[in-house]
């Protein structure tokens, strides 16, 4: 099956409509975080929700478009972190299929795994392009690790490993909460339904 045929079959109206909302959630979470003053990003929540409800490819497209639009409205730096978003989409999709959204602790665990991988992917980008500086609250961690004599790449990686698993763990927990609160009738409209509810009946 070629690509256009695959997309035509799988990107149905419910899926692309949800993808748009996924983009909006990714971009809008900055606002939520600022409003409630919580020290997290949560900017991949939309991607994770799409990955769980629709699958890997829709989540990847959601991630790419989110970061493109974010680089238009927030900071152009977002454009260079598309690979991180792709890894999150891929892993979130795989973990959903492995049943990681059936229990809350599994979701948190899955989020932490994704966080570690995201940190590993984004560290070289961040170190090479920006010297680890993103003008965010976590910069002081990079400074600290640098001051203790680590190499730049290592310092950035440690900073990522310190903050990303928590961020992604909470992202996954939030995604789990919203998915578990959703009525069956709504959830069944999306292709990922089978991985989100235990087949009891």
């Amino acid at each position, binding site marked *: 099956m070629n690509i256009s045929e695959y997309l035509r079959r799988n990107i149905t109206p419910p899926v692309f409509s949800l*993808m748009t909302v996924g*983009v909006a959630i990714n971009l809008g979470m900055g*606002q939520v975080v600022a*409003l409630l003053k919580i020290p997290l990003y949560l900017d991949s929540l939309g991607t994770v929700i799409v990955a769980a409800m629709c699958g890997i490819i829709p989540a990847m497209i959601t991630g790419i478009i989110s970061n493109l*639009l974010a680089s238009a409205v927030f900071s152009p*730096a977002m454009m260079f972190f598309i690979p991180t978003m792709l890894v999150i989409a891929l892993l979130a999709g795989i973990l959903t299929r492995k049943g990681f959204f059936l229990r809350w602790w599994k979701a948190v665990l899955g989020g932490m795994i994704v966080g570690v991988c995201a940190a590993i992917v984004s560290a070289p980008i961040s170190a090479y392009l920006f010297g680890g500086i993103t003008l965010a609250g976590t910069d002081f961690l990079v400074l600290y690790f640098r001051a203790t004599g680590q190499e730049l790449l290592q310092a950035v990686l440690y900073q990522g490993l310190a903050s990303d698993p928590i961020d992604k763990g909470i992202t996954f927990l939030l995604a789990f909460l919203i998915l578990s609160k959703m009525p069956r009738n709504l959830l069944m409209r999306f292709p990922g339904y089978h991985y989100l509810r235990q087949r009891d009946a």
Partner: protein
Amino acid sequence: MIRYLPHPVPVFLFLVLIIISGFTLSIEVRFIVSVMLLLLFTFHIHGNKILRTIVRIVIPLCIAIGLFMTFIYPETEQWLTIAGIRLSRDGLTAAGEMTSRILLLFTGIIAFFNLITIQRLGSYLYQNNLPVWLVFILINGLKFVDRFKYKLSEIHFYQRLRGMPLENIWQRWKATVKILIPLLYFMIEESSNRAIALEMRGFTATTRRTTLKPDRQSTIDKIITILISGIIIFILLRSILL
């Protein structure tokens, strides 16, 4: 004042050119090119917006990186002392490398998004028979963010009316859940209803689409397209051959 608003094709090529040159040119050339671009944009009709965004985003980032790299660079053994301040020589080079690249890349990207709007980009993709859902996501992504923010402030307002303490971290977490769950539920349910509406509008059509009017490049667009492609090929050839 330049009033020319280019076609998406030359702007896209411009972005490609900037990204390629950001990784190939030497530090000095990058600085010179960025300054030339900035000068060019001062005369453009959207120049104010472009320059303001650059001042707001790029300059603080460059300063932070510059300071960081020149003062804390532990691998180095060579230190320079200028006017009593100890600087790292390697750090200085790395700072120049990074700031010049960021200045050039960010100038290019900011200019890209100011020279063509998302709407224009979407309509170009639509004209060229890309899947209509892609255009839908691209154009509506930002519109839905506004909707998201509106709904967020609404729910936040009502939760505050009901008395929602925000002192310690546990209360904030509970507040986040109480606000986010209804918000996300609303957005997802609406998206599902919208899917029905879009199906009714013919978004599942498989026939080849017609367009209201053709999207053609003007002569200036064509000249600029050829010019930029020439430069891109030149830079690529140079970096391969040298």
